[in-house]
């Protein structure tokens, strides 16, 4: 079990690093898109490559970020029923869900999307739009994204079993410190204090 927990720690570190790097794509994507609109209107220059790079980045965010979002426990749940269970009960639900829901579907999509990527490489698939981008990086993001999701799923599974055995802390415990909403409230209060 200790070796597994060590593995889980390694996966978490990888996911964390991927997630923390990905967030910058939000800013880059924003600037490219706004810049594209401004350039088209002012100097009448536009290119399909600029349009396509936006959704490449968008896809990178949500596909490669799926594991990160899982780690942060931010995928939306309906806790109408589960909310009434004990912490251990909820952990059991998660273990069940990871094994029977998350893993099969993520592995299926990962497995099925790999040949699509290989085909894109072999045929040197290009965008249908004139001046568009080459397609394989977008195709590659699907299996890689779901692979990261499977990895993180494994890590979450280990942590939950560890929690039930009393070997590690509750993995769904939110890190201490204010939430974004609480921070907003603090900022407004601070400003009112200055006034």
């Amino acid at each position, binding site marked *: 079990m200790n070796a597994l927990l060590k593995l889980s720690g390694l996966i978490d570190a990888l996911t964390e690093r991927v997630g923390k790097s990905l*967030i*910058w794509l939000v800013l880059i994507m924003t600037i490219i898109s706004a810049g594209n609109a401004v350039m088209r209107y002012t100097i009448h220059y536009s290119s399909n490559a600029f349009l396509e790079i936006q959704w490449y980045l968008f896809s990178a965010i949500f596909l490669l970020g799926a594991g990160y979002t899982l780690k942060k426990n931010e995928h*939306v749940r309906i806790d109408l029923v589960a909310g009434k269970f004990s912490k251990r009960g909820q952990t059991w639900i998660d273990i069940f869900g990871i094994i029977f829901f998350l893993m099969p579907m993520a592995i299926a999509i990962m497995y099925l999307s790999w040949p699509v990527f290989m085909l894109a490489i072999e045929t040197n698939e290009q965008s249908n739009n004139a001046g568009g981008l080459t397609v394989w990086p977008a195709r590659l993001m*699907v299996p890689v994204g779901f692979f990261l999701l499977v990895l993180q799923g494994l890590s979450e599974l280990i942590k939950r079993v560890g929690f039930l055995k009393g070997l590690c802390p509750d993995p769904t415990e939110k890190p201490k410190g204010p939430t974004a909403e609480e921070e907003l409230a603090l900022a407004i209060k601070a400003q009112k204090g200055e006034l």
Partner: protein
Amino acid sequence: MTEFLINNMAPIIFAFMVIFMLVGFPVAFALAANGVVFGLIGIELGLIGPQIFQALPDRVFGVMSNDTLLAIPFFTFMGLILERSGMAEDLLDTIGQLFGPLRGGLAFAVIFVGALLAATTGVVAASVISMGLISLPIMLRYGYDKRLASGVIAASGTLAQIIPPSLVLIIMADQLGRSVGDMYKGAFIPGFVLTGLYVGYVVLITLFKPSHAPALPPEARSLRGAKLALRVLTTLVPPLFLIFLVLGTIFLGIATPTEGGAMGATGALIMAIMRKRLSWSLLKQAMETTAKLTTFVVFILVGARVFSLTFYGVDGHRWVEHLLTDLPGGEIGFLIVTNILIFFLAFFLDFFELSFIVVPLLGPVADKLGIDLIWFGVLLAVNMQTSFMHPPFGFALFYLRSVAPASIKTTDIYWGAIPFVCIQIIMVGLVIMFPQMVTFGLDEDVKVDLDKVIIEMQDSGYGVPETPPGISGTPEENAPAEEDPNKAIMDSMKQDAAK
């Protein structure tokens, strides 16, 4: 047993979808797993061609290259930067001073600022928190009724859901296969009418229960005359500029809604830098929240697409259609039933779940009944807005509770929300009765965005050959579906399977 399964596959899948989601595991994965599990069962029973899963990567790819969804991170990012830029605080402060002398003035100020914020940030939590911290204490200090004060704040905060540019409308446009620009135009007048109804309610209160919403005494107003006029003008510049940058460019056709979002986000960044409110930690926090929100939202859609692959594969859409087209009252009956359904589902599901799971089932039926889908989308958006105000789960109420002083009891917040939920229901009725509110701003012939239609309609292309008895299937398909490459593939798969 097998016979029973084969004949009732669609309702069974639907029932299991509900169970899978109620288990409490993330919705996106539960949905996708449901699709995979029943896809395998369907193949085993010979209901679906064995190659159905080959379409999975394509489903994901369709979500990736969807330009409309790209607007989600942009508008989220814009809202997150704006909420910390101090704009809301300035507005509430100044507009409160402006309307203060009027009876009910602070409530009017809250509604007005709520609408302005809705047209810029579109984040319910941020609006409610700002108002709860700035306006609520002043309202209470000068004798406002607790329920009125908390109700008006929660309701004005939720205006962000219906006044463009809102995420709900973007997703609605995507799911119903209409352009976001048209959806925005259609939502404009209903958004203002709803704001007007809130104002009307406060006017009634000032007439019949003046003590519930008193005017501010002179000593509470630090600014007046020319000084106040100048303050009002300067604080209105940033939101109006942003509204132009986003909605103006979209409506004038300079930018697509996606680009409008990006321009708005850039504008918000520049404004925050100019006001010296942008720090590295704030920027990182906003980017991280945007990335996570984008991920979970888009993953619900991925899950829903995997689910629909199987569900439509067993003709689930025909089952839903059959259930809904046979309702008494035709078009109006359908609208009333779907709205009641959404209203009650909104107690348990948030609008992302509703729009990705329920709307795609309703859309094609509405279309077949000849209902304008822009009208339908706006109608559902107004309806879903209530999900933020339903006691006891409504998010707006939850955020208000987190910042309201202890002197306001949670029951006050719940009771305060109820008149506004009623107004919301009246508004749904008004939109049903007067579709002109939505269609007024649109072109004569609502232009159909072909790309979107294909994305929307490709689901309805399955299962043409064998229509189970008892289900009124019409063999002719919608024209756009014919252009869908997926349909041809799926059809050939079906034929293979039949062999």
